[in-house]
């Protein structure tokens, strides 16, 4: 914009000046999404002294990250999700979930569950709130660090989805606790998350990921390793829920995996977008090489709790679940 001659008087346009050069008429998604993140100038993120910790943080973990692109604002969410679209769609999704919960409660579903399956839910399902919360926090970090608004916004909705399922698991924890007050629901999840063998792979991966601050490594490890691993674990739980006639857990997980599909779509588009710069390919491979083993150990430990060989199955399944560079 600085190349405008001082004598030329700018005329009103039909859209924002930064979109006016596009061939296509901008969509509502583009009008409210593109180019909304600003920074102080070329050098600093914040309009404060260079040495303020957060300016150093952005420099180290974003500006000097190996994940780079010349024009991050050129990224487009394949689903073109806006805030109003997100809330409208999730409201519909939640109506469905409310319906499930109401219907199964009316049938006294929980009271009919076999005792060993109730124990399994206490061991492998309700502690998920810690796991989901770590993915909510890591998605929040992507919001803080992503270099442009079209990427930031995808992370905002992903953070919302993580909180959605944390909330539903909390709900189920309380509900199961009413029917089975002696089974530790609402009381033992933290101890299991911190100590039970089946959770230690996930906990180690997520703690290490929370302490990883390079924005590119954090986002790619989260969306290409950690969350696909969570999906695989949920698939396994669902598989057993079907076998044990636990329709509620089955349908809740299916609804949750619907949100995962949305995440996979934007991540796949993101990988395609960053692959325009060859150096990013090497970076992504390196990140996957570093984090893949954590994902493997997480699903292995979790899967083994279902029986012999299930952990190994999960390791194979998650390889396939990971989004890939084109």
């Amino acid at each position, binding site marked *: 914009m600085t190349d405008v001659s*001082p004598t030329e008087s700018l005329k009103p346009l039909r*859209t*924002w000046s930064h979109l006016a050069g596009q061939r296509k008429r901008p969509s509502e998604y583009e009008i409210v999404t593109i180019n909304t993140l600003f920074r102080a100038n070329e050098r600093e993120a914040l*309009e404060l002294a260079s040495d303020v910790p957060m300016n150093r943080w952005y420099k180290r973990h974003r500006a000097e990250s190996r994940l780079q692109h010349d024009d991050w604002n050129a990224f487009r969410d394949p689903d073109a999700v806006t*805030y109003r679209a997100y*809330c409208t769609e999730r409201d519909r999704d*939640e109506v469905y979930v409310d319906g499930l919960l109401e219907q199964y409660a009316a049938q006294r579903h929980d009271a009919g569950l076999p005792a060993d399956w109730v124990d399994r839910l206490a061991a492998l399902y309700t502690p998920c*709130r810690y796991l989901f919360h770590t993915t909510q926090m890591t998605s929040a970090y992507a919001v803080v660090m992503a270099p442009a608004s079209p990427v930031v916004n995808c992370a905002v909705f992903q953070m919302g989805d993580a909180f959605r399922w944390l909330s539903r698991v909390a709900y189920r*924890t309380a509900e199961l606790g009413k029917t089975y007050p002696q089974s530790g629901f609402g009381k033992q999840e933290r101890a299991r998350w911190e100590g039970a063998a089946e959770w230690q792979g996930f906990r180690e991966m997520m703690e290490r990921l929370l302490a990883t601050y390079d924005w590119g490594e954090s986002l790619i490890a989260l969306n290409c390793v950690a969350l696909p691993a969570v999906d695989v674990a949920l698939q396994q739980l669902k598989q057993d829920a079907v076998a044990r006639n636990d329709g509620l857990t089955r349908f809740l997980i299916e609804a949750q995996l619907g949100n995962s599909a949305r995440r996979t779509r934007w991540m796949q588009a993101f990988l395609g977008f960053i692959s325009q710069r060859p150096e990013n390919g090497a970076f992504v491979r390196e990140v996957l090489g570093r984090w893949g083993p954590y994902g493997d150990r997480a699903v292995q430990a979790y899967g083994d709790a279902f029986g012999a060989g299930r952990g190994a199955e999960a390791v194979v399944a998650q390889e396939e679940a990971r989004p890939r560079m084109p």
Partner: protein
Amino acid sequence: MALLNRSEWYDIARDTNWTPSYVGVEDIFPDEMSDAFGLSLDQWNAYDEPFKISYREYVQVQSRKDADAYSVKAALARSNFYDNAHPGWQSILKMHFGALVLLEYNAVIAEAKMARFAKAPGMRNMATFGSMDELRHAQIQLYFAHENVSKSRQFDWAIKCFHTQNWAAVAGRAMIDDLCLGRDAATMSIMLTFALEQGFTNLQFLGLAADAAEVGDYSFSNLISSVQTDEARHAQIGTAALKVLIANGKKEQAQRAVDIAFWRNWRMFMTLTGPAIDYLTPLEKRHQSFKEFVHEFIVAQFERSLEDLGLDKPWYWDLFLRTVDYFHHSGHLELWFVRQTLFWNPSAGVSPPERAWLEEKYPGWGEKWGRMWDVVGQNAIEGRDDKVFPKTFPVLCNVCGTSSGGIPYNGYHQGHWTDHGDGRRYYFCSAPCKWIFDVDPKRYLGHLSITDRLLAGQILPPTVEGALQYMGIHPGERGADADDYAWAHQCAAVSPSQTKVPHGNLATGL
């Protein structure tokens, strides 16, 4: 059986702190990002957000609110309200969108920093909603502003402003970065949600929505009311944080955070909202002066909030109350002078009936600012462009980035500065801005205001036109007197003697 009540499971959803063992707590929650107060995870577990809402309720309520706001807009789209609106109101819209919307987007990031780094699980969850709320505020307001881009190029500044080096953008970024992203999550919760949102914007939006309804801009009024309802919820994040901090012996540090943030907000608020209420709003639609608004809402409410928490009034409270009488009158005159740098057309707002209103609301206004406007008006009538446009730019405060706002004719001088060890003299608009700098100078060291950049040779050519180019504001975007000096002619007609004053030169600032 029906669904469980929220209260039956809510506490479980915010029982998510655990003890990490593969890495240290400080690796996940470094103090510089999480908590400058140094409280433990267990201490933060006591955090109790007063406004509770579940995800399920959130998406339901928000989707309905959006449906309402967008459908009112669609219904009123053909009313041509904007085309027939008072020029002062048109300017308020442009100012509002340009100065605010991308700051809302910045708050998406800031809230997410709390969602990630806050040590209190309840705060992390509330900030998750807060971040989503702010995305709503950015997107819905961009959508509304975009409707007007074909009517005036100045509306492009709704999205352009903060990508430029315009002085207003520099000042806005300096404020928001100092209060939000430039702070750890705990401090930010006080500065952003308690001081800025609960102290100012929540109330400002109520007033703005009422004013919009008064002038007949129902679409905008409805939009702002809708935004305010979100703000009222997530603005409570900081109050709960303050309770935890005070209970754990951190009152003094928390008080300092409040004091810093309130003053920084006040400077920005008086710079923009003061002139909007007292000079740009059409006279017949004004139901309250800026001073009355500040006393009724900001002062009364903020004093009550502080008292409820057991905090003190900021140390500069008496000075603050005095400045309500004058900051924005001088600020408005200065803004009008540098109107080419603005992306709205400021009304001078000093026609004879407007002067009478100002005198009634601010006894003595005419003696101070009226006399100055007399000189400006006479120069305007005589076509003396050299005297009604600036020859250079005023000194800008090295903390808040705005100009002095002193009282004219009382021997005002630039009396606040600090000679720092880096060999530079830093200037401040006021004692509190100097205090903010002195509390932690390294936050501000080396930063140059637009005027500093001009003097440092970073803006070439070092002329007003060079600076306008540097600020990214071009002909077709630059502000002009909204009434084409009609007010000056009216004043001269009513009271010719009023304009018989020596030729003054206000072009170099107050």
